[in-house]
């Protein structure tokens, strides 16, 4: 098995992070934006797990943190769906470009 080393994971997570940001800034669909955010969260998760594996003073916290984030992300997704559904009821779309009543 090939050992990649910590830097490779850092690059991957940075890439994921950038993908998430791009997705966030370009998607018009609220669900799409949520997906971008999830990418960012997972980029961080990847860092945690990789760090827990590669940092010399190996500690459990990184993995615990990753699991915790997964749980929180699930909770957030639940709330998100409720909010978006409600938004859909009012606006008949989940396109956030239509949510510009409040500005200035």
């Amino acid at each position: 098995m090939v050992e990649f080393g910590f830097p490779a994971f850092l690059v991957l997570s940075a890439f994921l992070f950038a993908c998430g940001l791009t997705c966030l800034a370009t998607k018009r669909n609220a669900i799409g934006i949520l997906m971008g955010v999830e990418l960012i969260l997972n980029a961080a998760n990847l860092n945690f797990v990789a760090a827990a594996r590669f940092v010399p003073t190996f500690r459990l916290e990184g993995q615990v943190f990753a699991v915790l984030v997964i749980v929180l992300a699930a909770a957030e997704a639940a709330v998100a769906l409720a909010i978006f559904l409600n938004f859909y009821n009012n606006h008949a779309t989940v396109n956030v470009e239509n949510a510009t009543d409040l500005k200035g």
Partner: protein
Amino acid sequence: MSDPTNLALLALGLPLLATILAAVMGTCSTLAKWAHLPVVTAFAGSAILALLVLSKVMQATGSEVAFLSTAQTWFHAGNLQVDFQITVDPLSALMLMTVTFVGTWIAVFSVGYMHDDPGYARYFSLMALFVFSMCLLILASDLLLLVAGWEGVGLCSYLLIGYYYAKPSAAAAARKAFLVTRLGDVGMILGIFLFWQAGGYHTNFDKLFAHITANPPDSVTLTTACLLLFCGAIGKSAQFPLYVWLPDAMEGPTPVSALIHAATMVTAGVYLLARAMPLFVLSPDAQIVVALIGGFTAILSAFIALAQHDLKRVLAYSTVSQLGYMFMALGAGGPVSANLVVTAAIFHVFTHAFFKALLFLSSGSVMHAMGNVIDMRKFGGLRTLMPVTHITFLCGAAALAGFPLLSGFWSKDLIIDMVYQASEHGGSHATLYGLVFLTALVTAFLTAFYTFRAYFLTFWGELRTPPEAGHHAQESPLGLLAPLIVLAFGAVLAGITVEPFAHGFSNLLVKAPSVVLANSVLHVEAEATHPHFDFALAGISTLLALSGMALAWWHYRTGIETVPAALKSVYRLSENKLYVDEIFNGMFVKPAEWLAVLSRLCDGLLDGVARVVSFIPRLIGALLKPLQNGLVQFYALGMVLGLAVFLTVVVVRTSQ
């Protein structure tokens, strides 16, 4: 109760108690009409206590007289320790006495004047709070405690000027007063910070002065700090260029004008400078600026007062002008001596409190009778209709004009003498002090002229009353007249009884610790310097005052405004000086008009600058507004870009 600080604390506490009582009474409609009782009682009690305090101070022996109350820590942050502590020394005792005494009579007058106003209780509650703040300002022995009183006075003046808040002009005037004085306060706070840093982190007056005089900072810092402190005084005491709020402040009830203009708010700046004399004598440059600003304000506002039609506005501009006199005196501290100039300034504050309160209350009495009309063109010849008001107004006007032997004559003469001496020994600034001296003389002439113009227009000629007066057109009731009579005696006699022959003020003020310190900085032998009476100067100023009065009599004895054709344009400029648009009405022709044009330009320029300055934040706001476009992706992008900018800058900086 032998300790004067206890008496002074009581004198401070009474108005506060009255504030609360009057406010509570205001919530119950049956009690509200008795709201004046606690206030008048408290003021009278404070005045009596202040008299006792003053007598204790006079009895005290020694070269320095000051009583300090026990200090209670009020505020503590780092090096900053602010104590709640009051100082009773000759300076504060005299001011306390003036404020409470005049305040009492104004409150008595208000009882009759405001009798069926819906906001009766609110009015008296605010009056009491105002007097409390002023007393706190006077008695504070710490700069920041003084600021607390100072801001309290500002707040109360805002609320009182805007008392008729349903009237848009009153609301605008209140806001103007608040914002303009606050502009000065910003400078003052910065000045305090500078002194605090330079003065070994003390804000207590005694400690700060001792530290600064022992280790004076470099002259630039010192002058800057002094001038910043003076900014606060400029705002509060309505000096050029921040005087613009005071004439508008006439929108409040007339007794409020009397309170603000005569005894309290506007003298706060004079008091601050008198208190901070040890700091100012260290900086001759700051002193000459104070004197120049005072002189310029005095002549500018005297000129504007020449042709105002509104009786109260004439008095308002005259207040600005008289305050200018006080600052001229204070600015002469370095070349003369601290105790003399402080005596001159505080003496003028004292006499001015009497005659200006008297004039305002008399005009209030006129206003009361004329159905709230105050335009002098609409009435005239009132001396038969309102004989008592006529006599009292005459007393006040003569005192203001500097008629010989009346109070204003002595105090104004003392100031002119100070400025003259400064021009003799002024060192490098002697010429400038000479200029200030000339200004003072010209202003004395103008003062006599405009004061008596107002007097003749109101009380001489044929009897004319406006239709609004109706059945009110008669002499005011006794409740209004009694304070007038008391104050008239004060206006006539307050001068001669104390100075320049009895040395009541100078003997007392020379013992104030800050004055002693300022004198020691100047190496002045305090014992040797009593104000002497200079007959030549008195003769000149008498001549000027009398000729001003004579000129007014010549023009206005018929009670009708007549303007010689040659001076018409000058007159009109002075008359209309608040209306910027009329500046362009073909007034640029004759050379004689340039003085008037200049004074109007100043006003217009200030207004324009104020507009531009207030416009800039709005402009920036309007430019930034599109950022908040409501698009959530744009927001996210903005956040990410912000982070990216931070990251780039920081990473580039570190990798270099």
